[in-house]
Every structure is written in C-alpha cells, then in structure tokens.
C-alpha cells in the first residue's frame, strides 16, 4: 500500500523534489500529489526575462514538469492550497478539494515585496515573478503604445531581480528607469567600486539609474502614472514594476501553527523538517535554522535532502549551508560576486583593479597574510569567476595583484584547472564537483563534453562552466580525437583551414599531402563539401560533378537526388519560401503523372516526387528545368528550405512580409554547401506559425524588424534556437546570417548540425555573439565577402548536368545495357499511388 506525499507548489524547487523522489523511489512506495497555484507546470523562473521576445511559455517549461507517463504523480494546476490541518493531515485547495497526506512538503516559494508607497496599488503597477506578471506588463506596454504611441516604464529596486526586470522592459522596447534605495546597484552582491562601474555600463544600455533615493509617491495622472522620488525627481510613466525583494510565502504554515522564523519563512532544521515531523519545507519558503535562501541552487539541495529521507530512507544528509556566490549577465553586463565579497572577515584585505577604459572592475578579498582567497567581486568581465570561486578558502597560487592584472599572462588563465581541489564545485547550478567529473571521465567512460553533460549534469544549468569541461578532459589525459577518419588525422575544421590556406582544389592532392591511403566514405564527402564551400572564395568554382569531384560525392549528391530504400530516387525541386504558382504546381503534377511518381508534401513546404530510377532522372529534370524549376538540394548537405508563414500580406496578425523574406533568404543561400544540412524558417509574427525556432536559423518578425534565432534543431534531439539579435532591419539581418553561416561552415565538425556545434563551441552563445555581432575576432568582413562570392557564383546544378553529355551519360543503371531498367525494382499500389515492393534479402553465395 503506497503512502501519499503531497507537494504544495510546483516551482523549480518543488519540481526538483518530485523528480528526485521519483528517481529514488524505485519501489513505488510513494504516490505524489502536486498542488500548484499557477496554471502551468514548473518553468524556469530564473530565465523569466527570456520569455520577452518569444512570448512562448513553452520555451521556459522545465523538462518533464508535466510528469507524462508517470502514474504515480498527480499534478493539479491552478488550484492553490488554502488550508493545512496538521492534526487530520489534510490540505484543502481554493476549489474545495481535500487531499490527505502521509508526508507534506511546502515548496510555496516567495512573493514579491511591494513597499507601502502611496499609490503602489494603482493600475499600471506590477510585480515581476511569474509568466502571468510578464503578460500583464506586456499588455500594459502595448496599451500605452496604442494610446500615446510610446511606453515608459520604471523598476523599483536595483538588485539582481530589479535589473532582470529592467532587461525585460528593455526587451519590450522601453528605456526603463531603475530606482534603488541603496547608493549603488546590486548592493548585496557588489561593492561601491563595482556598483559605480555597473551603473555606468547599464546606463550605456539606455537604462536610467536613480540610486540612493526612494519612491515617495505614485499618483495617477491623466491615464498615466507620476512617480515622485525622494530626491525631487518626477517621472511620467505608463507602468511601474516593483522588484524590491521577496518574502517567503509562509501563510499556510503560520495559520496551521507551525513554527516560523523570526524574519519569516517556515522554520526547519538542517534536514528541512518543520516543527511537525510529517511536514517539510524547501526552497525560498524554508528558513533553515532561521535563514531563508533566495537562490535556486540551495533550494535544489534542500529538495535532494528531503527526497533522500522520504524515498531512499536516508536521513543522513543535512543542509550544508549555501554558497551565495553569483555570476550573472545582467543586461549583457557580467557581474559576479563570491565568498566574502564585502570583506567582513576580520583583518581581510582588498586588492582592486579598476580599469575604467576597459570597463572592468575586479576585486579579490584575501586573508591578512594575503595568501588565502576569501572572496571577490567582478564587474564587466567575469570570465575568471569559474577558476576563482572554487579557490575560496584556499591558498592563492600567486600574488593577488598579479592575478588580477589584465596584462598578467601569469594571471588567472595560468592558475589552470589543475590547481583546483577535487571537492571544488565546477557546476554550481547542479552542485557537481571536479572530483565527480574526474570520476565520470576515468570510471564511466565519458570522453566528450556532451557525454559529461549527460552523465553528470554539469553545464546543463546556466552553462557558464561548459568551457571548463574540455579542460578537465584534457587534464585527465583524454585527448578528444578530432581526426576525421583513418585517412586524415585532422578535424574537418582543420582541413577547411588547410584548403583555404593552400588553395588545394582536389581530393587527390589533399590526401597526398595531408593524409594517407585512398580515402573512404567519411572523408571523401567531407572534403567534397569543403571544396564546394570554399571554391567560390579561391576562384575554383565548378560543378560538384566535375572530374574527380564526382567520385567523392555520396550517391545523393552524385545523382542530385535522394536515394530511397529500394535504390530509386526522389526528386525535390526548389519552391522558395513555399510559395508556388498554380502553373508550376500543375507542372509538378503532370511530371509526376507522366513518370509515375509517388507524390508527397514535405515538412519544408515543397513537393517530393518518389520512385524515379537513375535513368529517369535527367528526363524528369529536363521537364522541370524547362518549366523554370531548379534543384532544391534536398540531396545535399546544403541549404534545404526556408519555410514561411503567410505573413503581413494576408494574415491579420502578421507584422512583416515573412514570405518575401523567406524567398529572399532561400535564393541567397541556395546551393550553399555546409557540414550538415541547413534549415530555416521565417515567421511573420510572434505566433511563430513557421516554427522558426526549431531551425538552424530562424527569423521571427517584430513590429520593429526581425528577431534572429540560431542553432535550433528538430529531429532526434530537439533544441529551441537562441536569440542572437533582436529588432534588426532586413539588411542587418542578412548580414548577420551571412556571418553566422560562414562561421559555422568554417568551424563545425563533419555532419555536425548547428545545435551541437553551439553546444560544443567554447564560450557558447556569448562567444558566438561576440564573433558574429561584435566582430571581436575581426573576421566578419571576410565572412561576408565569402558569402558574397557564393551568391555571385551560384548556378543550378541540374541545369549544369543537362548541358553536359559526359555527366548525363552517368545516369544509367547498366553501362553495358543503357536504357535497360533495373529489373529488381518493382512497385505496388497503395492509396491510389505506387509504393516500392519491399526487397527480400537475396541468398548469400
């Protein structure tokens, strides 16, 4: 007979608890009932500001949070628990539903604190905590724009969450004010020096900071709001977001008579048990020995501790206290704070390097003998956080000033991961230590970054530690082999550089000089792809079936069609943007009818014609080319399609001409050979009907221009594309895509789609943005020039074949019996169309 565990709250921590209980409780001893106030399953509240722009709540949803396929978890959404009776062991929800429990976990989180400023409850005043809050803020901003043509917003509170809220307002197109009572932004995390640089950096981003003053009054003023600040400033506003701290939601526990902390929160011991032994509290609502923690990582630790007691019968784990270190990118500015950031330890010393020109502020707090690191603050550039934070409480490997010195080649880069002890935490989101990762490498056979991520969860949270994983692999002696195959010891990216530098134009020369043997089905197509990508740049442009190059191609490229299971091919002409005239549609129908082809509409908005034999292909294409069609490259590792929704031309909701943009992009990048296939889509509004975020590059129209998303993927490992640039005009959009595609083509591994490429790219999305948007490497001119060459040199591959008798002669099944069809191919009929008769496996001699 299973017992019932009731979890009140389905936030990030509540969800982690359910996951941990279900993972540990292999015997199914617990039935879990989750009662949640919000109408949607657990989502990534830490990433809330990224909801702006996509306006798609699904992108924030935490994996598995609706507990599909788990009969032992029952999730009741949108029905808050309003009463708790510890004597009867029953909770009651707002709708009157009663649920008894054997064990109860309170994971109710916090509510935003709204200071009692007069006018704080006027329409136009909001808090920043949930997806619904953001929807309400957006509605107010949209309304203001409709009425007055603009929207002005302010955030009250300049802490971590306040700056996140300011980012959200900025992403909605406002130039927000931030009002902070303390003399600096983020007073808890940074010191005065860091705070003043932070103020300067965020003010450069269109945010006005009012520090050292409070809001004395909010008044309604002809449909708008007037905020009066303590320093006399008056702000005309359309909306105000309160982000002045959080308070634990302990009201259930209070009314039920459980002990609460002096400063609020449900009082629990170091095993997260409340004054009632059947009731636990975790996350922001829990006051562990009197202290509440407003970060997600300590909450996760609490969830694990309770799950171990309930499901694994292991009561040994206790809450170890929390590392309140933080590393964030706020409004694009790096901010990190770790250990004793404010030098409160007796006798501690501060070493500061404040570089106003570079816009960086770095402070280390060290012990009185200057040898032990106690903490620090980094603003503007927090790249050293990962190596410094694990060293807190340990001896520094050098003079602190030298470590911070920007010129210090011997500085932090030189500390190296080897200096970190095994117990040093590498991934603070998931509490993964260096020792754990070393074990995974040495004992569990993890020899790649993706395997390490899957096995240890390191790097799957905020991702900031991903750059440390390859270093750990290397320090453990794992050479991540990038060799293409037995014939080339180089990686694809290295071969690309070799070809670019040497201007070698044939496979034979490349393998003679840089490889060995005769080549194989791995290196030949890879080199063919490199040669095709680079040919226009080095002025060696030719047809992919010219000379030796034909023999390098996979069968699909060699016959410019897609081989199917019975050895026949399918034909996919290009239909740019999915837009096609009735006349052309009729041609496709007639060709299919005349050659007896099976027809199907593809996911990429074009038409696939199946069942063509090698011999038929040129005849089919003659008809298609005459009717104005060209190759769709469905057979190539190349641009496939740019899907589109119908956009502003027809759609009531469209804000840009998505079809026009899709056609332009598809024509621009058609024929572009790349390490793997490339898919794209353009949506005409945020409703995203073209599903652009599942594409290698996806574009979503905004009222001001276009948002560009990159490195999405459907398929086996789906991944939503990341926002690379927002509200850009068409010209900028195309320039960014040019750069993005060329950078990917140059640096990716063989058959590596853009999504795994980004996962492995050191520095991730931030690095990509630095290269593509900020041109940090100074290569963008080069990338754009390469794309311009590609566009200039494009020629239809099928037209090239039809014009060349030598190439045409290869389209035959039997060299000694031209025209004779392959007798093993046969068809039957299904749903009024022909389909292949499945081939039996012949006897092996």
């Amino acid at each position: 007979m299973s017992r019932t565990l009731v979890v009140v709250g389905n936030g990030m921590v509540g969800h982690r608890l359910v996951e941990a209980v279900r993972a540990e409780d292999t015997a199914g001893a617990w039935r879990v009932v989750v009662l949640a106030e919000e109408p949607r399953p657990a989502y990534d509240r830490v990433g809330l500001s990224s909801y702006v722009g996509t306006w798609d709540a699904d992108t924030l949803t935490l994996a598995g949070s609706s507990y599909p396929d788990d009969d032992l978890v029952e999730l009741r959404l949108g029905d808050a628990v309003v009463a708790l009776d510890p004597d009867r062991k029953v909770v009651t929800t707002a709708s009157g539903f009663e649920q008894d429990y054997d064990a109860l976990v309170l994971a109710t989180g916090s509510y935003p604190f709204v200071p009692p400023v007069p006018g704080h409850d006027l329409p136009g005043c909001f808090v920043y905590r949930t997806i619904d809050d953001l929807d309400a803020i957006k509605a107010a901003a949209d309304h203001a724009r409709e009425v007055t043509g603009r929207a002005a917003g302010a955030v009250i509170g300049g802490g971590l969450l306040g700056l996140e809220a300011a980012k959200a307002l900025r992403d909605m197109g406002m130039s927000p004010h931030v009002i902070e009572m303390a003399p600096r932004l983020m007073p808890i995390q940074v010191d005065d020096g860091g705070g003043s640089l932070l103020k300067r950096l965020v003010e450069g981003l269109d945010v006005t900071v009012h520090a050292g003053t409070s809001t004395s009054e909010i008044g309604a003023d002809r449909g708008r709001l007037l905020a009066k600040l303590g320093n006399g400033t008056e702000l005309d506003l359309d909306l105000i977001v309160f982000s002045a701290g959080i308070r634990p939601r302990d009201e259930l526990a209070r009314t039920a008579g459980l002990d609460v902390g002096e400063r609020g929160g449900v009082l629990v011991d170091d095993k997260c048990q409340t004054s009632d032994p059947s009731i636990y509290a975790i996350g922001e609502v829990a006051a562990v020995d009197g202290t509440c923690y407003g970060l997600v990582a300590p909450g996760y630790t609490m969830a694990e501790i309770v799950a171990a007691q309930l499901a694994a019968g292991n009561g040994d784990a206790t809450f170890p206290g929390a590392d309140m270190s933080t590393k964030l990118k706020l409004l694009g500015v790096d901010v990190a704070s770790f250990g004793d950031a404010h030098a409160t330890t007796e006798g501690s010393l501060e070493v500061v390097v404040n570089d106003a020109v570079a816009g960086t502020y770095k402070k280390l707090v060290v012990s009185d003998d200057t040898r032990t690191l106690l903490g620090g603050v980094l603003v503007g550039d927090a790249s050293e956080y990962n190596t410094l934070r694990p060293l807190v409480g340990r001896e520094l490997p050098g003079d602190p000033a030298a470590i911070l010195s920007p010129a210090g080649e011997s500085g932090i880069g030189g500390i190296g991961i080897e200096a970190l002890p095994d117990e040093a935490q590498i991934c603070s989101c998931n509490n993964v230590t260096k020792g754990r990762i070393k074990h995974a490498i040495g004992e569990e056979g993890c020899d790649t970054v993706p395997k390490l991520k899957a096995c240890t969860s390191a790097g799957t949270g905020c991702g900031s530690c991903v750059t440390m994983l390859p270093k750990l692999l290397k320090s453990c002696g794992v050479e991540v082999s990038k060799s293409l195959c037995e014939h080339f010891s180089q990686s694809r990216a290295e071969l690309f550089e070799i070809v670019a530098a040497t201007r070698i134009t044939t496979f034979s020369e490349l393998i003679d000089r840089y490889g060995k043997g005769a080549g194989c089905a791995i290196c030949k197509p890879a080199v063919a792809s490199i040669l095709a990508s680079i040919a226009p740049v080095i002025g060696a442009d030719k047809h992919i079936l010219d000379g030796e190059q034909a023999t390098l191609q996979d069968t699909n490229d060699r016959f410019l069609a897609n081989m199917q299971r019975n050895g026949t091919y399918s034909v996919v002409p290009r239909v740019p943007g999915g837009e096609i005239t009735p006349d052309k549609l009729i041609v496709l129908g007639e060709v299919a009818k005349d050659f007896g082809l099976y027809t199907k509409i593809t996911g990429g908005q074009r038409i696939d014609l199946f069942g063509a034999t090698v011999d038929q292909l040129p005849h089919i294409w003659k008809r298609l080319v005459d009717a104005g069609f060209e190759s769709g490259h469905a057979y190539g590792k190349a641009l496939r399609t740019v899907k589109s929704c119908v956009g502003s031309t027809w759609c009531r909701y469209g804000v840009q001409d998505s079809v026009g943009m899709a056609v332009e992009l598809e024509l621009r990048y058609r024929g572009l050979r790349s390490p793997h296939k490339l898919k794209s889509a353009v949506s005409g509004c945020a409703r995203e009907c073209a599903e652009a975020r599942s594409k290698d590059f996806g574009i979503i129209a905004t009222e001001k221009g276009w948002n560009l998303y990159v490195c999405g993927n459907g398929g086996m490992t789906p991944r939503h594309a990341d926002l690379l640039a927002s509200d850009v005009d068409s010209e900028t959009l195309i320039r960014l895509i040019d750069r993005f595609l060329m950078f990917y083509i140059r640096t990716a591994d063989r058959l590596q789609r853009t999504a795994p490429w980004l996962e492995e790219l050191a520095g991730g999305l931030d690095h990509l943005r630095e290269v593509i948007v900020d041109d940090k490497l100074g290569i963008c001119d080069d990338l754009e020039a390469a794309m311009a060459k590609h566009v200039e040199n494009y020629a239809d591959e099928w037209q090239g074949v039809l014009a060349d008798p030598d190439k045409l002669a290869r389209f035959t099944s039997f060299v000694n019996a031209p025209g004779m069809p392959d007798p093993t191919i046969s068809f039957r009929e299904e749903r009024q169309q022909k389909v292949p008769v499945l081939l039996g496996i012949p006897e092996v001699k």
Partner: protein
Amino acid sequence: MTAVMDAGATVWTEICAVSRIPIACGVGALLPDGEQVAIFRTTDEEILAIGNIDPISGAAVLSRGIVGDADGVPCVASPIYKERFDLRSGACLDDPDMSVPTYPVRVEAGVIYVGSA
C-alpha cells in the same frame, strides 16, 4: 551486350572501356543470366567486380557507393546504410555474416570483361 564462351565454360561479358569508369568509381552492368554486377576501378588502377545487390537492403546499388580503402583493403561503402564491402573478397567489413559474390575480371585492349559461370 556481348558474351563470349571460353574453354572453362566461363562466360565473359563485355562491360565497357576502362576509361569509361573514373578512378575510384564504379559502374553497374548486367550479365547474360540477369545477374547484376558492380565493376570498380580503384585508386591503384585495379579493376574489380562484385555483386551489385547490397545484401543488407536488398537494393541493387553497390556500384553507386563511394570507393576507398580500409587499412589498405580496397572497398566500397553501400549507399544505403554505409556498410563496407571488400572489393577483392566480397566480405562485408562491418558485418561478418554478410558478403557479396565476386567475379573474375579480364582487361583486353582497354576493354573490361567480367566472367560468370
């Protein structure tokens, strides 16, 4: 199609001129009894013939695979699921239970002939 009987009752079928096959490439051909062969010209200028039917998929496609070597052994990779076949022995290098037949080859005056029983 031209077929010639020789003394050992081997039928030699004329395929094409060597020059018709690009280096490191294959062509398909039909034997008198309807069997399909794949004839390859390797990087080392060897001419080798195996059955054209890929035993894994059942499709007659091996002549359209990529030709190369595995540790020096000339081979072709099936275009369907990429298993490699030794062009000299017909053995599948990726699945010991699979193989394809091999055929004798003769080159006379620049023309390829494939022998069959």
